[in-house]
C-alpha cells in the first residue's frame, strides 16, 4: 500500500503531462473538446477548494479574537465586512445592476463606493513607491547601475511635455537627410524597440528553456517536492 501511495500521484502527473503534451499535435476534434472540458473541471475544483481557504482565514482570525491578541478588534471589522458583502450580495442575487432598467442595486452601490476607491488607492500608492525606489536605488555605484540610472532618466525626461520643450531648445542640423541630434522621441523609441526588445528577447528565451526543463522534471517525476511527504 505504501508503494501505491507514493506512485499514484507520480503516475497521474506523468499521464496528464504526456497526454496534454501530445494533444497539441493531434488535430482530432475530440482533443479540443477535452481542453474546454478541462477548463470547466478546474472551475469546479477551484470552487470546492475555496472552502480550504475560508477555513484557514476563519481559523487564524477567530484564534486572534479568542486569544484577545493585540488589535483583535480589527478581525471583527474583517468579519463584519465579509458577512455584510456576502449577505447583501445574496440578497441582490449577485446582480450589481438590474439588467432591464440599468439601475444600480445596493450590492452594486456597496461595490462602487467601497471596493473601487480601496482598489484604486492601493494602485495609486505605486506612484509614491516608484519615486522612493528610484531615489534609493538609482545610485551610480557600479557601471551597470549607472546605465540603469541614465536609461531611466532619459526615458522619464522624454515622456513629458516639459522634457520635450527643454530638449527642443537644442539646435539641430541636417547631415545627409538625418537630423542630428535626433528628436528625443526617436531616441527613446529606438531604446525601447531595440535595446529593450533585445534584452527582453534574451531573457524570455532563457525563461522558455527554464520552463520546459521544469515541466519535464515534473512529468518524469524527478521534481516531486510539490507533493510533500514521500513517506
Amino acid at each position, binding site marked *: 500500500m505504501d508503494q501505491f501511495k507514493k506512485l499514484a500521484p507520480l503516475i497521474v502527473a506523468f499521464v496528464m503531462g504526456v497526454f496534454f503534451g501530445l494533444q497539441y499535435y493531434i488535430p482530432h476534434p475530440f482533443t479540443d473538446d477535452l481542453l474546454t472540458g478541462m477548463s470547466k473541471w478546474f472551475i469546479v475544483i477551484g470552487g470546492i477548494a475555496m472552502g480550504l481557504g475560508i477555513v484557514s482565514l476563519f481559523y487564524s482570525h477567530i484564534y486572534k479574537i479568542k486569544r484577545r491578541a493585540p488589535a483583535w478588534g480589527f478581525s471583527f471589522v474583517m468579519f463584519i465586512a465579509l458577512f455584510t458583502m456576502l449577505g447583501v450580495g445574496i440578497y441582490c442575487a449577485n446582480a*450589481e*445592476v438590474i*439588467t432591464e432598467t*440599468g439601475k444600480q442595486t445596493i450590492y452594486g452601490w456597496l461595490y*462602487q463606493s467601497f471596493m*473601487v476607491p480601496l482598489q*484604486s488607492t492601493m494602485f495609486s500608492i505605486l*506612484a*509614491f513607491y*516608484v*519615486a*522612493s525606489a*528610484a*531615489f*534609493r536605488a*538609482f*545610485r*551610480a*555605484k557600479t557601471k551597470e547601475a549607472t546605465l540603469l*540610472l541614465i536609461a*531611466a*532618466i532619459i526615458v*522619464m*525626461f522624454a*515622456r*513629458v*511635455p*516639459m*522634457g*520635450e*520643450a527643454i530638449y527642443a531648445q537644442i539646435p539641430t542640423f541636417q547631415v545627409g537627410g538625418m537630423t542630428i541630434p535626433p528628436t528625443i522621441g526617436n531616441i527613446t523609441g529606438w531604446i525601447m524597440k531595440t535595446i529593450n526588445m533585445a534584452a527582453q528577447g534574451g531573457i524570455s528565451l532563457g525563461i522558455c528553456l527554464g520552463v520546459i526543463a521544469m515541466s519535464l522534471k515534473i512529468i518524469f517525476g524527478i521534481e516531486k517536492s510539490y507533493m510533500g511527504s514521500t513517506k
Partner: protein
Amino acid sequence: MSGFLKKMSDLDKRVIFVLISLAVIIPLLYPLFIEINVNPEVKAVYDTIENLPNGSTVFLAMDFDPSSKPELYPMAEAVLRHCFRKNHKVIGMTFWVTGVGLGEKALTDIAKEYNKEYGTDYLYLGWKAGGYALVIQMGEEGIAAAFPVDHYGRETASMPILQKITHLKNIDYLVELAAGASIGTWYYYGKMKYKFKMGGGCTGVMAASWYNLLKIDWINGFMGGLRGAAEYEKLIDKKSKATRGMDAQSVSHMLIIAMIILGNIAYFANRAKGNK
C-alpha cells in the same frame, strides 16, 4: 553644505512622499499650462469635427468606467466642448454599465456650459444590455428602436434630435472613447456596414496598439492616454483637466529626476569625504 548632502543621501522616504503629493496636487490646482506639441493623429480627430458643417451629428460612445476616468473623462469633456461650440448635435451612449454615471455627468455638465437643450441639441441613451446586437439594431431598425427610452426613461422616438438622425448611417462622426476592446464592436457591426467616419480615444497603455487601427483605417485619428486628451484641449484652447494632469506629470517626473541627481551628488560627495 556637507550637512545637507549627508541628509540628502539617506533622506527619509516620507519627505519624498510629501514632495510627490505636492508635485501632483499643486499643478492640479494652479496649472502651469506647459506647451505641448500636438501629434497628427489627435489633430485628425479635431479637423474632422472642425470641418463638419455646423449642426451635424456626432455620436459619442463613452465605453469606460471610473477605473480609467483620469485619462478618458477629460477626452469626453474636450470633444463635447468642441461639438457644442460648433453647434453639432451629440448622442451619448455606453457599453459599460459601471460607467453610465460618468457619461451622464460629462454630457449634462458641458451642455449646461453651452446652455444646450436636452432632446434637441443632445441626447443621452445611457446603458442597455445587448452589446453588438444594439449596434445592429441601431443600424437596421433605427436608434429609437434600439433605445425606446433614454437614460432618464423618456421616450426617444418623439425627440427632435432623432427626427432627421434616425439610423446609424445618418450620423456624421462616431467618437469611441474605449478602456477595453469595444472599438471592434463599433467597427465590425457599425462602420463596416454603415460607412460612417470613426475616430476615438484610448488609455495610454492601449495607445501603441491603436496605431495599427489607424494604419488599417478603422479610425481616422485618436487620442492616446492623458497626453492625447491634453493635446485636444490645446487644440480647442480650453485647457482643463488633462492639461493640468500633464503639468502634474511633467513636475513629478522632473522632481524624480532631480532627486536622483541630488542623491547621486550626495553619494559621490560622501564617498569622496569618506576615503579622504
